[in-house]
């Protein structure tokens, strides 16, 4: 078994190399493109363009305790703190040049997408107004159900349009064989990640949410590389070994919970607060419905469409409920932590319906907490923990009632 520190070290190496590349000022440096989550970044890897994610940067700013100051700076520049908190953090850094790793790097290109989150386009337009560099909008469908032929065709047409834009801007042709290789690597990495999530059906849960939150850095930043795929292969194998040895996350597993929504990046300690009291997170809608999935078909463009269109925020309520029913059964769920995230309206609207349905059908209790994924301003850490205490008592009382019955 390689253990947690081994992966932590790999992550550190990866991050250092990635940020070193971003900071490269030499004449033959790679171009930097600021792109949104859910854009086919495999294309960028295949074209030697560094994809930079302002969203991921915002999570890092939270870890570096810089988010509050950056949100304030954004507010001063006219961006309300009611906006997506990833945007306020990243735009705050854009305006001030402050933040971890010397602030958000200056982009050569801006590319936004419209299908998974409608905030991206107007947010990127604010960046366009500031940086004055070319901005490509990748359109796509907001799904009404499972992706239709029409949806996939739209996504594929847009991906090809994006490729033309990149070819035009860089003056380099995309090597289709290389893209194919990247997509295949990416598919394999996501499959390992999906299988890893499956392992969490075991009791005790072999890998903690905190660890996965860190371990998703490779796949969210640079899918489609050998290094990333190798990382998830090793992580999967290590976790499998933990299952075989019956190892848990280090705390007693009294209750098994779902975390619904994006993590609270500036208060990840909250996860530990739950887990120290025996409430272990074994499933998150965040990981599974985005990166951890199997999407490969014979056609690479179709594969990309399936990967990037079927994200959780692009999934309609009835389908979410269907997925969650299976999760409650398969992962033996005792409770749901519903994080009503002020930082993301799209994710948060409808959450209560999912939780209430599970409560009706399975009697699964849920805890509703409000906060913001990346803006620590006004965060009521103590109040939230107070609710967690009460939730634990609720879970205990449910368990007692079950035993008596």
């Amino acid at each position, binding site marked *: 078994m390689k253990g947690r520190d081994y992966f932590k070290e790999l992550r550190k190496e990866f991050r250092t190399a990635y940020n070193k590349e971003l900071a490269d000022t030499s004449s033959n440096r790679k171009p930097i493109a600021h792109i949104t989550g859910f854009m086919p970044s495999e294309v960028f890897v295949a074209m030697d363009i560094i994809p930079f994610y302002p969203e991921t940067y915002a999570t890092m700013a939270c870890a570096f305790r810089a988010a509050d100051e950056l949100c304030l700076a954004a507010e001063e520049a006219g961006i309300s703190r009611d906006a997506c908190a990833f945007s306020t953090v990243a735009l705050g850094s854009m305006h001030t040049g402050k933040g971890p790793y010397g602030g958000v790097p200056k982009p050569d290109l801006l590319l936004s997408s419209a299908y998974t989150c409608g905030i991206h386009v*107007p947010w990127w337009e604010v960046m366009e107004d500031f940086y004055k560099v070319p901005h490509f909008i990748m359109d796509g469908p907001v799904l009404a159900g499972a992706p239709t032929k029409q949806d996939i065709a739209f996504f594929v047409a847009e991906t090809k349009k994006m490729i033309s834009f990149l070819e035009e801007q860089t003056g380099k042709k995309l090597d289709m064989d290389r893209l194919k290789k990247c997509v295949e690597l990416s598919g394999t990495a996501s499959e390992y990640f999906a299988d890893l999530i499956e392992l969490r059906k075991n009791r005790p849960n072999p890998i903690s949410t905190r660890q996965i939150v860190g371990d998703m850095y490779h796949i969210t930043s640079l899918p489609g590389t050998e290094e990333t795929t190798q990382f998830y292969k090793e992580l999967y194998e290590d976790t499998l070994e933990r299952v075989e040895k019956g190892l848990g996350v280090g705390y007693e597993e009294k209750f098994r919970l779902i975390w619904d929504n994006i993590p609270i990046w500036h208060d990840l300690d909250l996860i530990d607060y739950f887990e120290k009291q025996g409430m272990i997170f074994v499933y998150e809608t965040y990981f599974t419905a985005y990166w951890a999935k199997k999407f490969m078909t014979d056609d690479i463009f179709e594969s990309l469409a399936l990967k990037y269109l079927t994200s959780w925020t692009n999934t309609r309520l009835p389908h979410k409920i269907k997925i969650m029913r299976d999760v409650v059964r398969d992962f033996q769920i005792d409770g749901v932590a519903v994080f*009503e995230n*002020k930082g993301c309206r799209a994710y948060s609207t409808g959450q*209560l319906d999912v939780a209430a349905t599970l409560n009706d059908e399975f009697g699964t209790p849920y805890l509703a907490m409000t906060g913001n994924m990346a803006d620590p301003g006004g965060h009521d850490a103590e109040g939230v923990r107070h609710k967690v205490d009460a939730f634990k008592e609720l879970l205990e009382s449910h368990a007692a009632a079950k035993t008596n019955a």
Partner: protein
Amino acid sequence: MISEFKKIYEQRADIANEWKKQNGKVVGCFNAMTPQEMIHAAGALPVLIQDVGMDITEARRYLPEFLCPTLKDCLAQAMDGKLSYIDGIIMSHLCEGMRGFYGVWEKNAGLSDPLLIQVPATSEESALTFYIEECRKLKRYLEELTGNQITDEALKKSIAIYNENRALINKLYELRKPSQNRIKGSEIVSVLNAGLIMPKEKHNEMLKKFIAEKTAEPVQETAEDSLTFYLISNELFEAETIMSTIEALGSTVVSDNLAYGLRYSMEPVAMNGDPMLSLADHYLNKIPCPGKFRSDVLVNKLTDSIKELKCNGAIWSVEKYCDPYIFEFPIFQQSMKENGIPLLKIEAEDVSNSGRLKTKIEAFAEMLS
């Protein structure tokens, strides 16, 4: 005549029920980006569902606090049985609030399942192809709901009626310009409101009469210290409050970007060619809605209008939690700064608080005079 328009809006449920008895189905829409001409061509009455200031207690049960008040209010109306006359519903996906709201509505509104229409963010070929397909989906939905075929001929006729309405609204805005000053901004809001829920033919008739009356009136003299403002607002009833407050001070709001006003009516739908394609192209390209339009183009358009009208200042009042506007604001603010146009930002909390609102506007006016 304003009181007539007002009365019609207040009696929207009666009008809809009357329509059902005489003509057929009523179809609710959530925003201006819904090709209402198609509903009209199917022989149904399109009605816009807007914020009406409901008690939103029960809607709060399902929706997060940080969702826009309009959507909460709409759900509250449905749950309260206030929209029971609606037979079909179309939701055009315009903003992130809508994305999750669609499912919550479907589950809890107690009305027939809505049709979700995707509005692409761009307007080039692939987007247009996709959107035409969405319009076809809408066509099938409406035909099934009403039992009527939407023929090209019917669609052309409906487009003509809507185009007439657009032209009349343009005239209204002309009469509002400082050189004419025959219609107040707050009056226009009442006229628009009525148009959102009544048959367009009748609205056209009323508009013609109203415009004739107003044109016959002499040009109004304005006080020397009167100021002119441009209002950016996305809620009709909030806009009315703000405009009335400004008018009470002897100043005027000479134009605005209200979703259902000039913005919607700026250009007519092309009458030549396949009417469905013309409609799709029009809704995708010709309506500068911040939810789907490029911010820089939008801001430039707004800036040009403000300059052309020689407004003394711009007033920005946008509903809380409205993302498209949240991101447009910094770009607009920058443009106002560069063009030396004074800007007042009114927060959502101000509109519900007449004292605060008045103080803010008065102070802004004092600053300018």
